[in-house]
């Protein structure tokens, strides 16, 4: 089986008003299919930048980045959008659910950009909400859901497209400990069941310790 994502000596330099700020300075990493990986490091270490690159939200300044078998550097903006839609799922610290939109429609959103019809979208979204244990909350809007429930909706949205890799950026950062543990357990269960590679970005050592392997970043490079 091919790797979900491969990075070979990638760098990413931001240009802030004429000043070059290196965020990544040569990172090589392979996310295997079904992997469970935690990326840890302090703020500004480049772990968020790495996650954005692995999620095809951004292109590396140099180096070779292959996601779902496709070389990111050669892709146009619409092709990257399609790659994200088909290969990557995101879970964010602040959930990023659309307000005034039901849990069902939030989960179905990625399928809208896949051109799926409304009925097929709703079927898939309802099944996914069932899998994250929210089968009874489909018609609720984000402001009617608890933090843990909102994050479950976000997880369902990330997985409804059956991606190869799930990128979770501080998924428990806005949750209390018990809820956070429950969300992590759900992610781990889905990782085990569906074989989606799980990449956790966190600065919480306890959360990171649950992963099969850990990568620590500092100043834009992976430290042993």
């Amino acid at each position: 089986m091919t790797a979900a994502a491969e990075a070979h000596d990638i760098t990413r330099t931001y240009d802030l008003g004429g000043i070059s700020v290196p965020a990544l300075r040569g990172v090589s990493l392979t996310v295997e299919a079904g992997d469970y990986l935690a990326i840890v490091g302090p703020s500004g270490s480049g772990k968020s930048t790495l996650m954005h690159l692995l999620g095809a939200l951004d292109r590396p300044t140099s180096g070779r980045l292959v996601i779902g078998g496709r070389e990111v550097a050669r892709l146009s903006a619409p092709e990257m959008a399609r790659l994200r839609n088909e290969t990557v799922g995101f879970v964010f610290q602040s959930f990023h659910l659309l307000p005034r939109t039901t849990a069902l429609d939030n989960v179905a959103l990625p399928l809208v950009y896949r051109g799926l019809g409304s009925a097929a979208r709703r079927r898939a979204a309802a099944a996914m909400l069932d899998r994250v244990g929210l089968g009874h909350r489909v018609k609720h809007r984000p402001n009617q859901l608890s933090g843990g429930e909102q994050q479950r909706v976000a997880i369902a949205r990330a997985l409804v497209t059956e991606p190869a890799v799930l990128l979770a950026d501080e998924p428990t950062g806005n949750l209390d400990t018990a809820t956070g543990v429950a969300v992590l357990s759900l992610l781990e269960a889905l990782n085990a069941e569906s074989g989606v590679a799980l990449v956790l970005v966190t600065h919480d050592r306890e959360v990171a310790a649950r992963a099969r392997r850990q990568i620590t970043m500092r100043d834009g490079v992976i430290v042993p």
Partner: protein
Amino acid sequence: MRVGEAWRVAIDALRANRLRSGLTMLGVVIGVAAVVVLVAIGTGAKQEVERQVEGLGSNLLIVVPGRVDFGSAPAVSRLSLSDVDAVTRIVGDRSRVAVTVSSGETVRAGTASRFTSVLGVLETTPQVFVRSLARGSYLTRSDVDTSRRVAVLGSSVARTLFGERDPVGQQVSIAGVRFRVVGVFTPLGQSLGVDRDDEVHIPVTTAHRLLGTNRVDGIAIKAPDRDRIATLADRIVAELSRRHPDTEFSAVTQEQILGVLGDILGVLTGVLAAIAGISLLVGGVGVSNIMLVSVRERTREIGLRKAVGARPRDIGVQFLLEAVLLTTLGGVSGMVLGVVAALVVGALSPVPAAITWWSLALAFGVSAAVGIAFGVVPAQRAGRLDPVEALRSE
């Protein structure tokens, strides 16, 4: 993304900010309504003028001394009744030739008086122009031949001097000379602010004595048919020029008058439409402004949509549809408001209003185009947002 889906998203977004959407739309509503109303008034005025010029009578030819040219001073007439006889010989039918000599005079009856235009005319006037009498009878040929002091009153003059009484058979004095009223015209009403019933007709021969002149201001000929107007005009102008070698004569047809007036009113309508168009443009700028605010406000949403696979085009189309929806909804409301306002104006004021399909189509088309034109920049901006930056924004 499917187009139906994009519409749904756009409608949802507008609904989420009802007040803001409504106020933004209001700019377009007012712009479109202004275009519809002002074009309706301009068109109505044009139709009214055309109707009145045509109402003068068909196949009319008017001969005046001097060149008919806007901007040149009216020439002093040297035409006399012998010229009228010469024209009558060319036409071959006395009943088709009318003349006027006019003067502003005070007309009195008892204690009532009114300053009005007194026209010296031939008995043929009702046949050449379309005029009918409400009471009594018009001037006769023998009135003209014997310079009788008889008068036919316009309805406004009759009302001022006699109120509800029947003026026929009564005496009036015109410039101090006593006349007997023989008839009263049927009212013609106002046209564009001018009272068409404010006149008195007397025999041209009597008018010459009264005014101490023998001039005739102009000659009007009713041609037997449309095809002969041009040749008739040429022959009359040639004859008059032969009789008065040092004077230029012009013959104008009703069609020429209509053409000139139509051009003037067409320009007027165009200017009104352009002014209204500016307000539509301002409404469009409002739409653009609100769409930019909306893009900024929903940056996080745009980032999220991009993260789950929206292409730049999907985002752009979504925002463009929002702008187009704002302006077309505003456009339709503006059309309805404009039509209602035009009907009210037409019903309550002397200004006529005629709603034309082209003005409705134009207003709607322009508002939709404004939506596209002013929605493009915000939509492109939304489409090009960097997803990483967009997700980070608060």
